[in-house]
């Protein structure tokens, strides 16, 4: 028993953080640094403590969390229709008793409610499928960015996630989805509905999951309910000139959304052109142009576009998002 412990660091590599995550952390840290410096009191002992940080730090932390949440919402999270495809080989099953459990799966955290049964499959590299057989899961999913999707299946209801905080509850065949941050698209019986932050699907359900008729939220078929960032619905490749062949406003919008990551300037040009046409897609495009300019760091243009949006559509579906984004840009 006197044998010394082995050294494991050559076996366990530190998993690197992506540059996008570092950039977000750096931005939040530097934004908060001035406040923290101003709030500095006498230096504290640096001995490890078990207690929580002091109230002043809590306030700073809360501000950072709030800023992060606003940034996340303003970043235009996109949600897609689910077509489950990841196999279930290697599935891990979790059943909870009266207390529930917390499961850390890759970069996501899933709180499994009491008396629930959940299966987990896949991984961050290939996509994650969480199957809720019974009970309730509360998911906090890190933004997926370019990675394969994080999918929750509950009976005949599917939710595809790119990054958000939400709850799925299932009692028998009745399923409810409660979105706390971001936005999700729910698919049930071939029908789809967008569920924004602070909303529940189906609208008549309770948090424990009752009443699960077909989705009655805003349909995605012809008219947009709300600008949600990039959500292409077909696989046609877009090009900067692609809008010349995109005949309907919806096709123009989707062409622009496909360009966001690779050619943001072209996407903004398309959005601006569509915005001039007015209508529901024009409103969405105007907001999207403002959001994208903000993402690119062109804050003056972003502010102009967002103010224009609020002037033209003060009660529009993205009005609250536009106000939050404007606040962040001030």
């Amino acid at each position: 028993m006197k044998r010394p412990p082995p050294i494991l660091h050559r076996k366990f590599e530190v998993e690197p953080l992506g540059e996008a995550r570092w950039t977000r952390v750096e931005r939040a840290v530097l934004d908060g640094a001035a406040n923290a410096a101003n709030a500095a009191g006498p230096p504290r002992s640096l001995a490890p403590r078990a207690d929580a940080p002091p109230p002043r730090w809590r306030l700073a932390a809360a501000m950072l969390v709030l800023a992060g949440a606003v940034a996340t919402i303003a970043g235009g999270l996109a949600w897609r229709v689910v077509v489950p495809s990841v196999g279930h080989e290697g599935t891990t099953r979790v059943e909870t008793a009266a207390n529930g459990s917390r499961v850390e799966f890759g970069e996501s955290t899933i709180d499994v409610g009491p008396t629930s049964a959940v299966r987990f499959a896949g991984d961050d590299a290939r996509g994650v499928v969480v199957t809720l057989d019974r009970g309730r899961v509360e998911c906090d999913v890190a933004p997926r960015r370019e990675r394969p999707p994080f999918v929750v299946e509950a009976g005949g209801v599917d939710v595809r996630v790119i990054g958000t905080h939400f709850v799925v509850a299932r009692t028998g065949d009745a399923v409810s989805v409660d979105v706390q941050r971001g936005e999700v698209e729910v698919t049930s019986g071939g029908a789809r509905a967008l569920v924004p932050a602070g909303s529940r699907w189906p609208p008549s359900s309770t948090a424990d999951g009752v009443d699960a008729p077909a989705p009655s939220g805003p349909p995605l078929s012809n008219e947009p309910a709300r600008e949600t960032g990039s959500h292409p619905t077909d696989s046609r490749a877009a090009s900067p000139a692609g809008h010349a062949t995109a005949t309907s406003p919806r096709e123009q919008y989707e062409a622009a959304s496909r360009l966001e990551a690779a050619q943001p300037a072209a996407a903004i040009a398309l959005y601006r052109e569509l915005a001039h046409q007015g209508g529901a897609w024009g409103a969405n495009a105007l907001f999207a142009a403002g959001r994208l300019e903000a993402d690119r760091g062109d804050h003056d243009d972003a502010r102009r576009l967002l103010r224009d949006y609020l002037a033209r559509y003060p009660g529009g579906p993205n009005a609250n998002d536009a106000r939050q984004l404007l606040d962040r840009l001030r």
Partner: protein
Amino acid sequence: MKGPVAARFSRRDDVDLARRCVSGDQTAHRELFQRERRRVHVILFRVLGSNADMDDLLQEVFIEVFRSIPGFRGEAALGTWLDRIAVRVAYAHITRRRVETVRLSIVAEPVSHQPGADERAMTREAAAHLYSALDRMPASQRVAFTLHVVDGRPIKQVAESMDASVVATKVRVWRAWRALRRAGGRDPLIADLLNGGAQPPDER
């Protein structure tokens, strides 16, 4: 002409950087973050075993660094001072999240046919089991064990990071080691890790 940024900095560099940070110089804030972010990430990752919650914890560490930096006098290297803050944040995080946690492997099956893919998948599985066992230990033992055994830091350095004596730190490591040996009796992956699969001990 200066070459690439050196990996080590003099005490004078540290004090100058700290002074600039105290004066509100945002370039200095960025420089300190860029210089030390990997060091902080390694400590947090080693202690916690994953990148879950990492963004929040990194922010917590650096905000605490900038809040406390007026008290930095250069008695120790800036890196050592940062280590203490990172350890304290990790320690507080462990003690805060005392809910029942199940940590699943994110590699359910080998995803590559390249040489060594199976071994890497098995190593990650073993790491998940190890950290699951560490979840059941007192935070002080976990921090001491992970920094010394998993990260390979000398006991003296770990003791400084934890603001504890060398003897107390050794005791924490050995208690954690003993508990893991017991866990290895029930978990072949942990047993293999501790007995055969690990590298021989480094010079302490």
